[in-house]
């Protein structure tokens, strides 16, 4: 009788897991399937024939292409800058003990807690206050700020895991603090730094809420372009664009997995080591 209860619980647990996974993946799969639909209008699922017309439409749409280009540039620059700033902040938080350190550490993570809409609106106000009206720098600034918590968190997590004696050993062997940092600390924290950079890149690529506020008619990201297009003409080009976005994210995750093992990276990002 006892055994039965346990077995039942196990079955339920697996079922729940499968259900969750299905729920996660099904909508995306639907959209991807629809992106290959041959019909010229938005028909009901499933697609009736295979064609690449929506991909052609995507490639012929200046708005989307410009959005993709902006997205890639902003994501690359923002993730690099956020990695450097976040990495430096993490090194400080890890190495020095000072009053208010915990508070500062929490403060750096606050963009995770503040709703993205609030963040976007506040940033818009702030940028106009300091006289920045162009979309490009605003997008860059905004994306760096929302990416920072991730880069700080992942870098800090891997720094905390480095034994103090390793750096001390380097110093005792004649290495200066600087040499020890470049030769011991940084290579050992590499996983966290790269993970942070990739998280930052993916986050920037996917962001809508902040970008909606900060974009202007000349500089907008791909998700912003999708939303704009959705209001004008709702067709399956959006499905094709979504597929491209999903594919690039999947590609990124595959690289991540290949380089350092996905479980470890996700663990680093979310949980304190």
């Amino acid at each position: 009788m006892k055994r039965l209860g346990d077995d039942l619980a196990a079955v339920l647990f697996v079922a729940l897991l499968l259900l969750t996974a299905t729920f996660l993946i099904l909508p995306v799969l639907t959209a991807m399937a629809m992106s290959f639909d041959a019909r010229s209008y938005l028909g009901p699922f499933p697609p009736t024939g295979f064609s690449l017309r929506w991909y052609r439409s995507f490639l012929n749409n200046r708005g989307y292409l410009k959005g993709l280009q902006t997205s890639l540039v902003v994501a690359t620059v923002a993730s690099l800058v956020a990695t450097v700033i976040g990495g430096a902040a993490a090194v400080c938080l890890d190495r020095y003990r000072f009053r208010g350190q915990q508070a500062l550490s929490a403060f750096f993570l606050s963009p995770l807690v503040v709703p993205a809409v609030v963040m976007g609106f506040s940033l818009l106000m702030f940028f106009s206050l300091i006289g920045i009206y162009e979309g490009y720098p605003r997008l860059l600034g905004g994306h760096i700020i929302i990416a920072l918590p991730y880069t700080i968190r992942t870098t800090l997590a891997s720094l905390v895991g480095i034994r103090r004696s390793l750096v001390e050993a380097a110093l005792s062997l004649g290495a200066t603090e600087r040499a020890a940092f470049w030769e011991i600390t940084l290579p050992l924290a590499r996983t966290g730094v790269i993970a942070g950079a990739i998280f930052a890149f993916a986050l920037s690529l996917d962001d809508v809420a902040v970008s909606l506020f900060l974009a202007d008619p000349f500089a907008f990201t791909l998700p912003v372009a999708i939303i704009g297009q959705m209001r004008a003409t709702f067709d399956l080009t959006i499905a094709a664009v979504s597929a491209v976005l999903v594919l690039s994210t999947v590609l990124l995750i595959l690289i991540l997995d290949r380089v350092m093992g996905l479980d470890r990276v996700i663990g680093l990002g979310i949980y304190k080591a």
Partner: protein
Amino acid sequence: MSVVELRQVVKRFGAVTAVAGLSFEVAEKQCVSLLGPSGCGKTTTLRMIAGFEAPSEGDILIGGKSMAGKRPYERNIGLVFQDYALFPHMTVEQNIAYGMRHRGVARTAIPGRTREALARVKLSGYEKRAPSQLSGGEQQRVALARALVTEPAVMLLDEPLSNLDAKLRQELRVELKEILTAAGTTTIIVTHDQEEAMSLAEHIILMNRGRVAQQGPPVELYAKPRSKFVAEFIGRSNWFEGRLSREASPGVWEYETTEGLRLLVPPPAGPVSGRYEVGVRPERIAVDRGAAPADASLSSRPNAVTGTVDYVENLGSDVHIWIHLTSGRRIRVVEKNVDQRLERAGAPIVARFAVSDCIVVAPEDESK
């Protein structure tokens, strides 16, 4: 000239004084052990010599030069950490070459010296291995080779064997001693293990509460401890409490324990006053089996005490005999397990020890 010298070194962490006015010298090629219980300040002292902590007061000299304000990399030291601290992202070869690269050894000389260093610790052929592929003992030897290869003025070893299991520890202790002797470097070993200190060092600085409790050759600390702390930290003893009653003959005092036993003991250090404790090492006590003969000859023999066997522990090479003395106290005697008639509990027995084997110390002052 001494290679390392500490002059009245004090280290405070906030309100806590970790090291309270420590002075000692380490001569060239000498192997010295900083021994003591945890929290006695020995590790802090090592970290100050290495330059990871700055003394609050006093001065540390290496090779006759003051190290005040000198960073660790500006000191000619070799460190072996308790956790070995091998760089996990480098091979054994790269680990060993690290110090040479930073200490300005010619690039062309590095591979040869790396090979020599590995041969010295019997790890030839391990060049391309990663530290994670090595056993604890092998990691320890790589750490040793890495520190030795730059030919530092002084080697600092922090609990070098404590991360190994008991059996391996004894084997590696001998190996460590051989390697250090062959290298001929001046060495300071921090340890809490008295056996390790006695086996490795020719001079022990026993620390307690940030001060030197006693220093000297291991045998001297064992045979002539100047306080109960020293006697208890290095080896075990049977203790009696009581007072010195009179000088029985020149250089021999009569000691009366609180239970009324009369013992003959050597004079204490310093002027005689008040209460004393007397300790006798368990292996310095001989036993006579059987009941004490009821004649006067026994009382004429000094330091023969009667009792009954409480319990016998046969530990293989040694036998521990716990004796319940007629006076009420329980003592332990250690004998080699050679004769093998083991006493039964309750059997009468006589324990004897020489006057010179009695350790006379003032009682511990706990308020200190």
